[in-house]
């Protein structure tokens, strides 16, 4: 695109008097994006997250070896030209396993987030909006879930179903939603009594519509932030479950499981457990930075 057309696009987006709803909506998105871009750290986080996601998705193309191929003659090899990150205890290429493991680990995180945020949001908003008995029942259920240590509860769930990636995802969802419900309920309570919600009630809108279109948008900012800040702890829970043998099952290359099986080599062949640890650390940090940036952009109180 030439400079002149880019400029005219920018003018179209930033105009004070948009001609249509579509233009106004795009202008709004562009302004948010511009605010977000100004935050260097958050942009760094975003870039790392995107790179990690792309690398895992393209693992079949990028990975130099099959992640399952063993070569016992070359086990626990140091990083070299042939194996950039060395090999593990069965002679499998660690770089390939990290790339394919990203599919499992990041896939779990995404699956958890897609389920946990709407679940917590729905429960919190319904409890907060209707109040009364429904609120009390839902919040006591939330308390019950909150009162267990997260990992222990997840472990119990997985053990009760059957170890594996899918049950690990459901276990994490079941243990991760209460804080979201609490957050959404608190936001709903502050919004519920305002005049603008009273005005919507006076249009005759149904409670469902009021919650979905008027209350949820007020909660979503803090929820998105909370989700991105939680991503790292979701990765860690997924990794811990893998570490304890309750998540991804061998030979599936999940980051946590990789650390678990390689931990006995930490003193002699330190790179074998360290590399997946670094992957977890980098992903967590990137999500945290991204969350911080999103909070700055989305929080109306900071504008």
């Amino acid at each position, binding site marked *: 695109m030439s400079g002149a057309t880019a400029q005219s696009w920018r003018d179209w987006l930033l105009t004070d*008097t948009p001609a249509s709803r579509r233009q106004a909506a795009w202008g709004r998105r562009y302004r948010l994006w511009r605010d977000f871009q100004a935050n260097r750290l958050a942009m760094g986080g975003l870039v790392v997250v995107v790179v990690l996601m792309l690398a895992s998705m393209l693992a079949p193309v990028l990975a130099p070896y099959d992640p399952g191929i063993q070569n016992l003659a070359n086990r626990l090899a140091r990083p070299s030209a042939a194996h950039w990150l060395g090999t593990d205890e069965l002679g499998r290429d660690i770089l390939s396993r990290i790339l394919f493991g990203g599919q499992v680990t990041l896939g779990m995180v995404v699956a958890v987030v897609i389920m946990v945020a709407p679940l917590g949001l729905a429960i919190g908003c319904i409890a907060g909006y209707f109040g009364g008995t429904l609120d009390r029942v839902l919040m006591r259920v939330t308390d019950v879930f909150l009162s267990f240590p997260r990992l222990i509860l997840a472990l119990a769930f997985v053990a009760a179903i059957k170890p594996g990636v899918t049950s690990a995802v459901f276990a994490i969802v079941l243990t991760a939603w209460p804080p979201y419900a609490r957050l959404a309920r608190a936001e709903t309570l502050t919004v519920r009594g305002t005049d603008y919600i009273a005005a919507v009630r006076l249009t005759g809108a149904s409670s469902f519509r009021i919650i979905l279109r008027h209350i949820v948008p007020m909660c979503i900012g803090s929820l998105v932030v909370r989700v991105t800040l939680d991503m790292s702890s979701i990765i860690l829970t997924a990794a811990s479950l893998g570490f304890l043998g309750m998540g991804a099952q061998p030979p599936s290359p999940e980051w946590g499981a990789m650390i678990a099986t390689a931990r006995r080599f930490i003193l002699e062949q330190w790179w074998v457990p360290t590399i997946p640890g670094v992957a977890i650390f980098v992903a967590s940090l990137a999500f945290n930075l991204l969350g911080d940036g999103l909070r700055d952009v989305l929080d109306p109180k900071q504008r």
Partner: protein
Amino acid sequence: MSTMIRVDDLGVRFGSFEAARGVSFAVEKGASFGIVGESGSGKSTVLRALSGLNQDWSGKMEIAGVALGPRRPKDFFRRVQMVFQDPYGSLHPRQTVDRALSEPLEVHGIADPEPRILRALAEVALPAAVRFRYPHQLSGGQRQRVAVARALMSEPDVLLLDEPTSALDVSVQAEVLNLLMDLQERRNLTYVMVSHNLAVVAHLCSTVGVMQGGEMVETVTSADLRAGRASHPHTRELRALSMELEEP
């Protein structure tokens, strides 16, 4: 003329506190009824019960001859709308003017939102450029105009005004009051206006009910009120106070 609003022996309780009791009044179609009183006299309570926001009341209320229950049918909200006191609080902070105005249309399934929104903006004398702005990008007077436009979107017969000008500065107050008077004339609206400002109420309303401690102590015409022919001591007190403020 027919009676548009009839309120008979209305009582509202909050727990053991009686916020309003034995309130009765009637408003003809196309007329304006003002309710004045000090803070806490129960005037807003009466309005919120009438609007359906407060469902916990006793007594009888009718709109156009139809008795009202605690829960109102959707059609009620098409015929009766409300403008709130604080224009800073009555517009959703995350929604553009466009969204605020299209909401009643979507809820009631009214067709042609585009021309209706543009016409509504013109009717309350707002430029079309305001359409995609957020409330925080508007002045107080503009916001209150948006709130009035929103209330008119479903083409109601009755507008309930809860101190619609008290959060605005004096020059803007006059603008909004004149707008309300214009609209009433054009659309034959029936108003119930709550205010603590006797001058504002007497300006807009032909009849005024005076409230004290949850009771409507007197109903007078504004002509009588202006001439000083009020019988209840509290009405005379309020009148004297407002005269004092106007002529220091």
